[in-house]
């Protein structure tokens, strides 16, 4: 069944036990993401050591896809530089939207590829990544407006 391709074990596991979930005080960046279509909300907080993401945590409520995607993302970008994390954002974005995109070297993030068969759910998976990109691209990430998917 195709559903197993969407709700892979990795996704179900990260939805049940999201990693890096909770508050992060103090933080160097705090951004909210909001999907007005479905009401998903998350707050992403980062600590930066120079150019490097030294810690990252998220809070909020959302569907299994959005929760698992945020959980997987925090694992994947912790320790990465801004440029590396933004590069990863581009690759994940392609993975979610482009059938031809390769999933090699993406590790556990490859589990998100099933989402592209469900266009209505792509925003669920990409919300956390857009929120992260907004934080990383900003020069003043403590006072960012909320990111929305619309």
């Amino acid at each position, binding site marked *: *069944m*195709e*559903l197993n391709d*969407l*709700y892979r074990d990795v996704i*179900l596991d990260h*939805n*049940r036990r999201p990693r890096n979930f909770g508050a992060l005080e103090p933080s160097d960046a705090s951004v909210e993401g909001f999907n007005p*279509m*479905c*009401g*998903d*909300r998350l707050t992403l907080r980062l600590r930066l050591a120079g150019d490097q993401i030294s810690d990252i945590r998220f809070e909020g*409520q*959302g*569907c*299994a*896809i959005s929760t698992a995607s945020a959980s997987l993302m925090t694992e994947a970008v912790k320790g990465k530089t801004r440029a590396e994390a933004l590069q990863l954002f581009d690759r994940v974005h392609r993975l979610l939207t482009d059938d031809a995109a390769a999933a090699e070297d993406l590790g556990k993030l490859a589990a998100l590829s099933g989402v592209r068969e*469900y266009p*209505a*759910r792509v925003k*669920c998976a990409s919300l956390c990544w857009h929120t992260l990109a907004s934080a990383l691209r900003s020069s003043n990430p403590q006072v960012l407006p909320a990111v929305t998917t619309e």
Partner: protein
Amino acid sequence: MKNIALADRPMGFDVHALRRQFPILSRTIRGKPLAYLDNGASAQRPNAVINAVDDYERHHHANIHRGVHTLSQEATALYEAARDRLVHFINARSRHEIIFVRGTTEAINLVAQSYARPQLKPGDEILITHLEHHANIVPWQMVCEQTGAKLMVAPIDARGEVHVEAVTALMSPRTRLLACAHVSNALGTVLPIRRLIAAAKERGIATLIDGAQAVSHLHVDVQELGCDFYAFSGHKMFGPTGVGVLYGREQLLERMPPWQGGGEMILAVTFAKTTYNGLPNKFEAGTPNISGAIGLGAAVDFLSGLDRDAAHAHESALLEHATAELSKIPQLRIVGTAADKASLVSFYVAGVHPHDLGTILDEDGIAIRTGHHCAMPVMDYFQLPATARASFAFYNTLEEIDRLAAGVERARKLFA
């Protein structure tokens, strides 16, 4: 003399014969038979509506109220005949009281801007309830901002019921209008609108009823209700999208200024002065949704041809069955448990986000609505981000509800 036709008719309500009149109900989704349980968002169309629109487009289309040529006269006759059907459908007094609009949303905005705005003073009050659809909240917020009036919100209780006393407690000498739903789209609650309208009338407060969710389920008689305005949409009563009706009492509509200016709503235009047309054209500026209105007229005929008591009894059986079957599922909470409910069930399964549930049910061919249902204050009240909502029409079956319950149980196990 024996009535053979009557004797041959199957006993009870023949849902399968009825379903055959709705072509979309025989399609498959992802290889499974469609179970369409999203009628609260939009109901499906019977052949009668599809054919009426098709016939108009193929044989009779022209602009209305304009030409002397044959097609224009035919189109005008069909459009105005649809209006007559709606007069009878809700028992309005005359065709002056039936304004064709785009839908319920436009109808409410029309009343907000044309009835309320010119008379509201700072400190005046508009009264709504906590369970309104955004379409019956935002237009009032806008007019309050424009005039300095205040929006008052009557509470609901944990069952999702609106109590008459809770509403009358907020009626004051400054209350100018009570605007409330007939049936809640998010919860299914049928509001005690007869008593609410009576209480408002006693105090000289005008009333607008949002009937979007009611007209497909309940018999609506605006004279018996006694409301000043009643708004509804075509597509939720098996008609086309993009057309709906504002009913207004003629005395009020007469006094209201036009809402939009343009063609159709005028009698004479010079650069010095424009003389407005009479009712209902005064409120129908521009070329209307002609085919939509004709389709809506056909939907009225279709509904009038049904045994609506039997249809209602069938819907009640669907609601009862859905409530019973869903209640058996562990971790499932039904949101909205009013004593008087239309046939829809809003619910939440702990550990299963409604959007995941919606995707999983779609895989089984089952269409439900998931989200906040354009009623975010209701979600806030129940402290939920969203719910899943299965909303039924008379063409749904008990078997479809069994499939729904099985799908929900499967989703629950997947995420457990």
